[in-house]
């Protein structure tokens, strides 16, 4: 049995008594790339938000590489990379300023080199001194891709990472994150919510489909346990 990267057990979250996530149990092996599918309101974002430590579950448990998500430990936060719906960027900073601050927070070694490499990889190095507030949605998303990889996380939790990206942007996303192809990197585990189901076959090793907070279909049982 492979090591588990993400494990949830009867994970539940209620809003005003109504379950947004209802006893979801999944086990994802290290190195897997899992697509989280489902219509709006199916619970994808809620699941990712709980795993990102930004939301407390109402019941059940979740672990990432053995760390209890509810305890929100520093060790856990050092190993997850997150892209949410909304870009998490200082609008009146330049990409360099934003990434330098977070490189300091994550204590990234050789941060200048790392930042240059990532901004070059997402093809916005030429925008490094521009204010982020002037960026298009796609440019912000490229920067978020770079930011999520800054500290070389072992698990990536992505909420619709394709938002705003053109064909070139999608290629960058696939190369850097979804195909684990960052140069010299060890494979990371990816759990990514997406509505682009036609693209899932190109990058995912499995999928989980949610509806009204419950798993209705999954490929996890065979390959990822």
């Amino acid at each position, binding site marked *: 049995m492979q090591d588990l990267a993400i494990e949830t057990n009867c994970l539940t979250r209620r809003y005003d008594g109504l379950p947004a996530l209802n006893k979801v149990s999944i086990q994802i092996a290290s190195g897997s790339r899992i697509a989280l599918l489902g219509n709006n309101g199916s619970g994808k974002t809620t699941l990712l938000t709980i795993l*990102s*430590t*930004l939301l407390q579950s109402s019941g059940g448990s979740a672990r990432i590489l053995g760390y209890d998500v509810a305890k929100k430990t*520093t060790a856990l*936060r*050092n190993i*997850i990379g*997150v892209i*949410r719906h*909304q*870009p*998490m*960027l*200082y*609008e*009146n*900073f330049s990409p360099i*300023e934003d990434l330098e*601050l*977070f490189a*300091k*927070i*994550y*204590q990234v070694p050789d941060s200048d080199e790392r930042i240059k490499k990532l901004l070059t990889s997402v093809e916005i190095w030429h925008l490094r001194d521009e204010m982020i507030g002037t960026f298009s949605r796609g440019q912000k998303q490229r920067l978020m891709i770079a*930011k999520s990889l800054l500290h070389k996380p072992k698990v990536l939790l992505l909420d619709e990472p394709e938002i705003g990206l053109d064909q070139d942007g999608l290629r960058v996303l696939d190369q850097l994150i979804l195909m684990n192809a960052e140069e010299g990197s060890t494979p990371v585990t990816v759990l990514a919510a997406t509505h682009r189901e036609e693209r899932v076959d190109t990058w995912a090793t499995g999928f989980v489909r949610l509806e009204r907070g419950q798993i209705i279909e999954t490929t996890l049982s065979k390959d990822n346990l």
Partner: protein
Amino acid sequence: MNLSTQLQIGGKLLNANLKQAWRDKTNWITAGMFAVTALLLYSFAFNLTTGLVRNLLPGVIWTVFLFSGIFATGQSFQHDRQNGILDALKISPIHPMTIYIAKTLANILMLLLIEFALLLGATILFSEPLFTPQLLLIVTIGTIGYTALSTLLSAINLDQNNGGLLLPVLALPLLVPLLIASVEATSASLQQEAGTAPWILLLSLFTIWSTAIATLMFPLAD
């Protein structure tokens, strides 16, 4: 992450908050303009020749400071939430208290800048010696106290649709003891009474209490 590293990161975050506030001047310009306008109106409203203005100044000063502070700090976490920065910081290894302290310190420094400028202006407008070391000390202590609370409250009520309205309603009852001590200490200082020290001590105690409580409460604020 040890204390020394947290302090280093806190310093970087403080610098980022100051840079952010400097570049996005909206709240600070609103606060500054309100303060200047209020001070000018008061100076025209009072009869400066009667000598009674000294009795009114503590109330005038702290009313202007309080509402400038609310304008300036009331939405200090709101921009961070809207940009997703607060989430980015919360999922990072940085301690929540470091996030709060860096934001509060940035607010305090920016507010003190406005307040000291106002004291200089008021010295000229009211012909009273308001830029004295003792008064600067009182203003600094009082500002630390109310900024600690208002910054915490700006984080608590972010998710409310009418958060901007809720802040003054929530903040004012909590700030009353601190404001009373600030006004009394300022009054004693202006009257050059011997009894300034007890009020400064009381003000310091309220400031320590509010700062400590706010710092401890911030991780639970969301």
